């Protein structure tokens, strides 16, 4: 009769799990009380914060693929007349980061 729970061979018994592995604390509710972040934190790894300089001459480090195809807007103080929009995308096997400078419409004007 071979109806056993586990196959055992003399000298090769499977050791029992240590008791401490069953003593984990149950997750509390304080983690669930916090709101999730507004924006996934990996998006801060955008390439748009690299300073422009002639030595890099338009080349940047390779982007992480999690930041691709997300549109960013420049964070400047409020009374501004120009705003920069930027995003990084892949074209075939290379990456292109495009930055577009747009005029900011003043309040009261109809914007297109």
């Amino acid at each position, binding site marked *: 009769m071979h109806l056993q729970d586990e196959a055992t061979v003399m000298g090769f018994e499977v050791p029992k799990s240590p008791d401490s592995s069953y003593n984990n604390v149950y997750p509390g509710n304080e983690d669930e009380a916090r709101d999730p972040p507004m924006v996934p934190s990996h998006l801060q790894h955008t390439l748009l914060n690299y*300073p*422009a300089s002639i030595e890099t001459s338009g080349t940047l480090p*390779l982007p992480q693929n999690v930041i691709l195809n997300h549109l960013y807007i420049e964070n400047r103080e409020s009374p501004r007349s120009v705003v920069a929009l930027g995003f990084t995308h892949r074209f075939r096997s290379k*990456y*292109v980061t*495009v*930055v577009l400078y747009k005029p900011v419409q003043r309040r009261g004007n109809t914007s297109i």
Partner: protein
Amino acid sequence: MFGSVADTGYEGSGISGPILIPKRFVWPYGGRRVFLSGSFTRWSEHIPMSPMEGCPAVFQVICSLMPGYHQYKFNVDGEWRHDEQQPFVSGNYGVVNTIYLAREPDITPAMLSTETPGRSHMEVDNDVFRHMEASPRMLVPDLEVSRHRISVFLSSNTAYDLLPESGKVVALDINLPVKQAFHVLFEQGVSMAPLWDFCRSQFVGVLSAMDFILILKELGNHGSNLTQEQLETHTIAAWKEGKLQRCRTLESNGGSYPWRFVHAGPHECLKDVALKVLQNKVSTVPIIHSSTEDGSFPQLLHLASLSGMLKCICRHFKHSLSSLPILQLPIGSIPLGTWVPQVGEPNGQPLAMLRPNASLGAALSMFIQAEVSSIPIVDDNDSLLDVYSRSDITALAKDKAYARISLDEISIHQALLLGQDANSPFGLHNGHRCHMCLRSDSLQKVMERLANPGVRRLVVVEAGSKRVEGIISLSDVFRFLLG
């Protein structure tokens, strides 16, 4: 053709029929017994090398090799060594030297023809070699072979190859006020940017340093409609429209004005892109991709320039420079560039130069009328002090200097100082402004230096005195290479 090859006993493959190319191997670093071994001896035979007469530290041998790629290494007094001055790679046998032999044997030096049948290939006539290498005249077959090879390379590579692995490109909305636009160009350290029209959802043109120069000229023109206050609200679109109107009222020169939007796709070959640059007299061509037939949803990918293409050429031919024989000629003996009359061959254009106390207005007029992109600044002896280029004009955006100056009262020297303020992280000035070369520098050296980003031209100076002899620009080199 090379019937006496059999004398050497060191044929590459041992197969008769295909043409073998004699190649001289040199080990100039001394030793007592030096042997050559390589892929052409299947790495098993060691060919003894003999010292040159009068130079016992220099060993040489001539082997006849099949055209193509070979590896080799030297055994010097029992130790395996490679020549660090020649191209080398790390391979199965450690670090080995490499050589690539072009297929056409008719460009090898003429002295190795069958006109010297009695001479064994092991003996080298040093005088003839020295004579061949000293002649700086440009041979027409060399020129044609080099041009053909470069043309083939440019035709078989596309604009996509110019893109860096991860690149950045700046574009401007066409409704941006001109003043803001130049601040952006200055802060981003670029000299031109494509223009995006939101209404049409298309890129419609570019804004470049030349536009800023024309605007400054307009401002200085008392009869003009453009005032300082209007500059705050005058959009790029209005400026371009005004320029077009003025162009239409003036005589047009056959429609070759660079105000048509010159751009290219990523799958266009490099040769077509280079021709677009030369024919439209622009410096940069935006590379734009659209996945639809009608060109909608365009993607701006890169700003292609001749320097990027030159870098591709230099990289490709780095290990086979013998296939472009004209590269070794000194730049002074090649008909390219603009020269002062006493030194080089005139190309119909006088070499425009200015003194540092000349007014900025005079420099701008020269940019517009003489259609040059940079002007050497020289002292009273015509020695080079600095260079003022069209792209330097964006430095006037710093601290809104353009609003405070009068073009005819500020000297070029002062204008250059404006751009060279310490602590300025922006702008195109970082200490490497004047790129100089000598008349005796080879075309290869000139091309490698022009391939650096940010270097658009080299000023040829006399050694020691730094007197200006000529200017060689990227477009000069490409016009010459493309014929």
